């Protein structure tokens, strides 16, 4: 497919592949700080609204305005951006120098690092943020007086933290954003704090994220002790100086990627640490859409993309990422199939799609991962918002068995049709944005050599089929079929009579339509011509990723150097010439992938249609059969119970720690305090009691003691006179 559309002028710039290291320090761009400042301002204003108990929708307006401003600023920033990227110092935070040596200074300030990768991220973060805030302004109406401003304050904090994370020029400010985003998700998941489930989910989210943050913190320490700096530009100069650098040997350089990976898995809910994301659905739906689908969960991918050079040092880490991503995708997809709550299904689908993105990172196509992030943000946000609209309309009803035939109901047509677009994109229906982005990843899985990447590729394709199945299972159950519904349990304003669902009004519909258009348009960048380098394929997103440290993962660059040991610098290897292209079924892997994933997508769709549209009874029959067969009954039950992962964590980590805590507490109170401290305190009293009888008051006992004492003294003196001190003759 030759690139067809080249209409965005900016892309016509052509510049040599300049190493990113000498980013221009340009303080004149300090207006870029607005992206950070505006959310802060809206946070303060929403806080004031909360203090003044504002009843109107003012907080929503403030937040929407500030996010729109941030979005416009980021677009402007993108428009006059030159490839090597700029460092914009804003405010001093920590800089300590106690010597002139390499490891005797530590600087980490609030300053922005604008390069294509961060611009790509900040644009879709702020863009989606604005849309979702508008959606939330209507969605949160029931809580107008009660928690409205607190909600929007939370959204502003989230956006500030996400911006700080994405735009920061050093790992410490990234860490600030990282924890800030975790805190914001704690704040927003726990929005309905009366509900214990929400509070528990919020706590779980924050703690699991904190485990990820622990990994990031240790990575930062290691990086500073090994490289002496945490600034991106300084790090890239070190990397640009080639890999033969004294700092690179030793166990630290191989530990850093694994710690960064731990952080990414924590934040982007991958296999070991994904348990918090499904529970995070306790929060209001706009939160799930904004944070747990589009922006926050992609932070993990951004981190790995930003620090990709570390991963290139250690090829094993890339293989681990690929496998973890692939396995998570499969696992989440299987769980997603067995759930009934549409928001939980979407949550598991997010985990699964993130698995894809990590697979992309693992198989050296940062471009594929980034592009999938870009498209996924749109259609997943769209799907979440449609679920939100349904939940909002049907008084909290989320069970797909209780609602069907939405497209026939009056006022719900927009929701149904936008949901269809979203489902198509998610399922990877040919020519949709999801299709192109997923294929970019799947193809690379077959191109790059690595341990078991072939199996990973076929597993990913099978997962794509499952994705198509469970997506359309939702759509056919909810939107297609006979129109019938049962209201949910949140009957807060049942003004008598039968409950009739209130369809979403203009704000929600407008946002849904915009997002639907967005997810369709998201396919376009794939077809833009690649300016940065003629060998590039992948359109605009590839250009954006190309100018960033994540360059190593651009198709056309990737297949050569990952395989060889990191003997020579990866710059040289890239130009050494193309190794033979491995082919798949005789065709170029990308082209082949179009056909394979297309067919798999359609097969999944038809399966879902057959089971959930035409022959719903058949679905129930199969399910009953599965449960009846003892040898297979465990499988559906396990899938429905989410493979017992939560119970596993509880049994392996939480319960032992809780018992250990009690043991320590008992140990502390009785052994250390009781035995040691009080024990020692009891010694004097014991000795006193032992000597007490001597003072019993009987005259003669007193006399005996007195005389005895005198006698002993005299005797000792006499004996010493005679025998001298210890046998020495006097």
């Amino acid at each position: 497919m030759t690139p067809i559309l080249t209409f965005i002028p900016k892309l016509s710039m052509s510049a040599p592949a300049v190493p990113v290291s000498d980013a221009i320090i340009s303080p004149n761009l300090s207006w870029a700080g607005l992206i950070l400042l505006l959310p802060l301002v809206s946070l303060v204003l929403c806080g004031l609204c909360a203090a003044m108990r504002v009843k109107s929708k003012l907080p929503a307006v403030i937040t929407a305005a500030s996010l729109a401003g941030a979005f416009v600023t980021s677009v402007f920033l993108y428009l006059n951006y030159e490839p090597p990227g700029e460092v914009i110092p804003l405010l001093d935070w920590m800089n300590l120098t106690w010597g002139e040596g390499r490891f005797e200074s530590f600087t980490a300030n609030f300053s922005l690092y604008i390069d294509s990768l961060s611009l790509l991220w900040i644009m879709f973060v702020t863009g989606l943020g604005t849309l979702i805030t508008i959606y939330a302004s209507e969605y949160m109406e029931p809580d107008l007086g009660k928690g409205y401003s607190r909600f929007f304050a939370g959204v502003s904090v989230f956006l500030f933290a996400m911006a700080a994370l994405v735009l920061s020029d050093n790992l410490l400010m990234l860490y600030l954003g990282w924890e800030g985003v975790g805190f914001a998700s704690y704040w927003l998941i726990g929005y309905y704090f009366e509900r214990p489930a929400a509070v528990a989910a919020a706590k779980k989210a924050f703690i699991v994220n904190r485990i990820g943050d622990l990994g990031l913190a240790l990575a930062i320490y290691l990086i500073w002790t090994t490289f002496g700096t945490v600034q991106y530009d300084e790090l890239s100069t070190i990397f640009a100086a080639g890999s033969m650098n004294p700092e690179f040997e030793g166990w630290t350089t191989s530990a850093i990627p694994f710690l960064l990976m731990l952080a990414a898995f924590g934040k982007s809910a991958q296999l070991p640490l994904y348990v918090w994301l499904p529970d995070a659905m306790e929060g209001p739906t706009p939160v799930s859409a904004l944070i747990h689908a589009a922006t926050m969960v992609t932070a993990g991918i951004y981190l790995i993309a930003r620090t990709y050079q570390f991963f290139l040092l250690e090829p094993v880490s890339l293989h681990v990422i690929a496998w973890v991503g692939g396995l998570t995708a499969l696992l989440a997809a299987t769980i997603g199939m067995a759930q009934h709550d549409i928001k939980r299904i979407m949550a598991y689908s997010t985990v699964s799609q993130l698995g894809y993105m990590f697979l992309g990172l693992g198989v050296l196509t940062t471009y594929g991962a980034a592009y999938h992030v870009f498209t996924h943000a749109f259609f997943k946000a769209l799907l979440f918002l449609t679920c939100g609209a349904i939940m909002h309309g049907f008084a909290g009803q989320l069970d797909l068995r209780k609602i069907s035939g939405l497209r026939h109901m009056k006022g719900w047509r927009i929701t149904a049709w936008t949901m269809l677009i979203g489902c198509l994109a998610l399922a990877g229906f040919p020519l949709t944005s999801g299709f192109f982005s997923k294929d970019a990843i799947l193809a690379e899985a077959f191109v790059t050599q690595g341990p078991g990447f072939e199996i990973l590729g076929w597993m990913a394709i099978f997962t794509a089929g499952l994705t198509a199945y469970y997506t359309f299972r939702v759509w056919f159950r909810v939107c297609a079929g006979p129109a019938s519904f049962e209201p949910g349990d949140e009957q807060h304003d049942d003004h008598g009579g039968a409950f009739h669902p209130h369809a979403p009004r203009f704000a929600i519909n407008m946002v849904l339509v915009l997002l639907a258009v967005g997810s369709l348009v998201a396919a376009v960048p794939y077809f833009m011509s690649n300016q940065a380098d003629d060998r590039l394929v992948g359109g605009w997103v590839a250009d954006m990723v190309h100018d960033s440290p994540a360059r190593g993962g651009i198709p056309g660059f990737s297949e050569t150097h990952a395989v060889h040991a990191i003997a020579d610098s990866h710059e040289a290897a890239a130009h050494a010439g193309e190794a033979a292209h491995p082919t798949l079924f005789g065709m170029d892997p990308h082209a082949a992938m179009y056909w394979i994933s297309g067919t798999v997508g359609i097969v999944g769709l038809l399966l879902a249609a057959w089971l959930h549209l035409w022959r719903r009874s058949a679905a129930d029959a199969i399910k009953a059969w599965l449960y009846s067969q003892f040898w297979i009954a465990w499988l559906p039950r396990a899938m429905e119970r989410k493979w017992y992962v939560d119970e596993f964590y509880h049994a392996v980590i939480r319960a032992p720690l809780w018992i250990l805590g009690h043991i320590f507490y008992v140990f502390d109170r009785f052994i250390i305090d009781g035995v040691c401290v009080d024990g020692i305190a009891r010694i004097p009293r014991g000795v006193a009691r032992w000597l007490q009888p001597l003072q019993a008051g009987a005259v003669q006992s007193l006399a005996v003691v007195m005389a005895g004492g005198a006698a002993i003294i005299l005797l000792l003196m006499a004996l010493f006179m005679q025998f001298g001190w210890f046998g020495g003759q006097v």
Partner: protein
Amino acid sequence: MDPILPYIATAVGAIGLLIVLSARTAPVRGVGGLIGLAGLAWLFVLAGSLPDGIQDAVEEGFFLVFALMAVASAVQMISQRRPVYAALFFVLVVLSVCGVLVMLEAFFMAFALVIVYAGAILITYMFVLMLAQQATDTEHIGEIPQYDRESRDPRAAVLVAAMFMATVVAAAFTGLGDLTPAGDAQARLQADAALLRSLPKQVERLAAKSNGFTLNTDLASSLRVEGDELVLAGTNADGGAATILLSSPGNTSHVGWSLVASFPASLELAGVILLMAMFGAVVLARRQVEHAEQELAEAIGAGRGGYGESQEVDE
């Protein structure tokens, strides 16, 4: 002579004493007594081997007899059930001590002891004993009160006693070596001369006894020791230089002279002590009338001053 032997002897003596004190029946006490005395005798034998050995067997013999008699009666005294017998045994102790004093040529003190101690002090004890032993009612006459029958646990007491004995034994066997003895007769005469010189009046009285002898004034030169005689120089009636012979004073005069010469103040003090003792005894022993238990408690509780102000209560 192994230096540890005396301590073993002391231990034997102590064990003997322990048996005597804690035994119930007479024969066992007897055996204990024998063991104790055996220990003591062994000690005396060991002491015999000290330098200069035993000068005069006879004298030492008598000394030994008196010593053993003293110790035996002392043991009897503390082990006797009846206090009166204890007092009587104490008289025996005093007598045997006087014997010892005689052997040590302290004749005056021996007899003083008999008179004062055995005579006066013991009689007071007997008197008080008789007073305090009245049986509360007739059928108890002759019965030994409980506090006399059993002594307090003697183990600790005997142990302390043994320790004191060990100290004395240690001193006796090691410490005496570096004490300088009194020296021979000549030195003793010189000491007598020095004593007489410090008593001029006494010398004049002696001089006046021999008729017609006048003393020249300077005693220091005139009183001399020649050979083993004490000589006093002076002028006799007819103006010629003459010396008279002073007999070395006997024990009593020695004691008297040194008492007056070196301890005049203490003598007065002794008198005062005796006076005070008499007053004390009189004040303390004034006829007190029985107090009811409650008044007594109240008196102690209220703490109204000393013991003296008790009210007279009719019989």
